[in-house]
């Protein structure tokens, strides 16, 4: 990397005086660049690029962390393709994303629109933002109880007030994943709301007033003026939400009962990465999962970037 920071232009033709002065200045700046970039370059090489390459290599090996590393080519990936647990974790991750992304976007936007230019905005904002700053681990602990099927308050409210017999959320796989999505959405509303509010603030009132003069009602104004002008914010938050949903771990780790048949049914990709490497010391398979996650995120983000041309309106 040092090579990239060394001065250039040594071969430049021209009057003898000028290039040398230029060279000297560049040398000095190149030196400063090394100084200023040094710490972050160390971080980039030692904690990101190096580990990334090593992880790619590990995904092609079999290793328990102590013995010899055996190169096995694409065997790990072939194993994943035939592994029920892998497809289960893919399904769970996708299913979570399908619930979480629209859930976070819609609730965040709804609260932001309701709050925009309204009294007591600051107070509401504080309240809605509270879960954002609290630890997902601690929040999961609360929800484990709230959602408890036999003596949790949620089900008893549903039963006593609405006559609904709710399922035991945490004991049935088909409800546990939606429950995790619900907790994630609950915790994210505040963040999405505040970013949407900033987006709404950026919409020039002139457009809305013009639409009003043309006789547009509230809904039409929202649909034809506000929403198109909000698409850059929506685009950014969609990517944030997608990436977040695919990397969800804390809530899954906390809300999945340990050592039970349920444990397998709620695994996500990131949970598998953790479990395989740090509980079962199967570093090769774990790295293979991580590579799959990396590729998935790349495809998703690239896909969004391509799609954005169709639906994101940037103001001139």
């Amino acid at each position, binding site marked *: 990397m040092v090579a*990239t*920071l060394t001065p250039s232009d040594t071969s430049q033709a021209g009057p003898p005086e000028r290039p040398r002065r230029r060279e000297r200045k560049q040398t000095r700046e190149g030196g400063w660049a090394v100084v200023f970039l040094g710490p972050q*370059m160390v971080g980039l090489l030692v904690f990101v690029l190096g580990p990334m390459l090593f992880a790619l290599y590990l995904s092609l090996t079999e290793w328990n962390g102590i013995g010899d590393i055996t190169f096995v080519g694409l065997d790990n990936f072939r194993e994943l393709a035939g592994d029920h647990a892998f497809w289960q974790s893919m399904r769970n991750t996708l299913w979570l994303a399908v619930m979480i992304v629209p859930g976070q976007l819609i609730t965040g936007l709804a609260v932001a629109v309701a709050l925009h230019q309204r009294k007591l905005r600051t107070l509401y904002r504080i*309240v809605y*933002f509270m879960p954002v700053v609290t630890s997902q681990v601690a929040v999961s602990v609360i929800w484990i109880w709230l959602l408890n099927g036999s*003596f949790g308050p949620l089900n008893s409210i549903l039963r006593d007030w609405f006559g609904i017999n709710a399922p035991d959320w945490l004991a049935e796989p088909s409800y546990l994943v939606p429950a995790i999505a619900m907790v994630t959405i609950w915790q994210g509303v505040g963040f999405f709301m*505040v970013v949407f509010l900033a987006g709404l603030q950026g919409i020039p009132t002139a457009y809305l007033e013009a639409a009003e003069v043309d006789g547009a009602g509230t809904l039409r104004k929202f649909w034809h003026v506000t929403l198109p002008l909000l698409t850059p914010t929506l685009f950014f938050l969609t990517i*944030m939400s997608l990436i977040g949903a695919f990397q969800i771990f*804390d809530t899954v780790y906390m809300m999945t009962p340990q050592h039970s048949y349920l444990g397998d049914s709620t695994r996500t990709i990131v949970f598998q*990465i953790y479990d395989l490497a740090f509980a079962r010391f199967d570093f090769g398979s774990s790295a293979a999962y991580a590579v799959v996650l990396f590729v998935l995120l790349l495809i998703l983000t690239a896909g969004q970037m391509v799609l954005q041309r169709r639906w994101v309106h940037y103001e001139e």
Partner: protein
Amino acid sequence: MSRRRTSPAEVTRSVSLHVILIAGALLTVVPFVWMILSSLKDQPQVFVFPPRWLPDPARWDNYADVWRAAPFLRAYGNSVFIAVMIVAFQLVTCAMAAYAFARLRFRGKNLLFLLFLATMMVPGQLTIIPVFLLMANIGLYDTHWAIILPEGLFSAFGVFMLRQFVRGIPTELEDAALIDGASRWRIFWSIIIPLLRAPLAALGTFTFVSSWNNFLAPLVFLRSPENYTVPVLIAQFKGEYSTNLPLLMAAASIAIVPVLVVFVVAQRQIIRGVTLTGAGK
């Protein structure tokens, strides 16, 4: 707008909106209230059917029990230490790199910057295994530095965001200082850093909050309970006391309530930090 008469329809709309907003606010707050109330119950009260909201009698000893059962004070100290160190390292090194990218001329600058940006796509879960092996090999496993160094020494986002702000600073001041013979180092510390106060505060807040709530890294890198951060201690506590719900709620309260108090006091700065940084991401 303000001179316009408010019609009855508008009043109805405003009222119904507030009703919905209050309902949403209750949904947000009630879990925390439930947590605090339940943390004061004793075991039999938990299994009362139908569930009761208020603890009767309140059992404050739950907190003493939690305090005795798990080293929460220590975990708080650990969490604060890690977060403060990460913030300090990140602010200094990111600002330095941002200054280099914004102001210095050197070969391969654009390519290198692109490389920084590209790493934002690399999920931390891909690099955590090799970083874990590295830490184990250099003797930093089960120390706080295993968490501090990777976070503190690299943040593509921090570099990117601060670079934008450095580019927004007019160069005249620097040019004058350069002519006077000031070094880049001096210029950076005495001209650039003071002008970056607001974005540095925002980035610092954002980094602090994410470090505070980080779970995967401390879970992987720390083994001894006396090194645990608050989230890891909570997770371990949950494993041991999974049937003692009041104690669990007391532990969760110990983790959450102080954070909420700090948040409410500094909400403007915290919301700005988390979203300014988030919105630029």
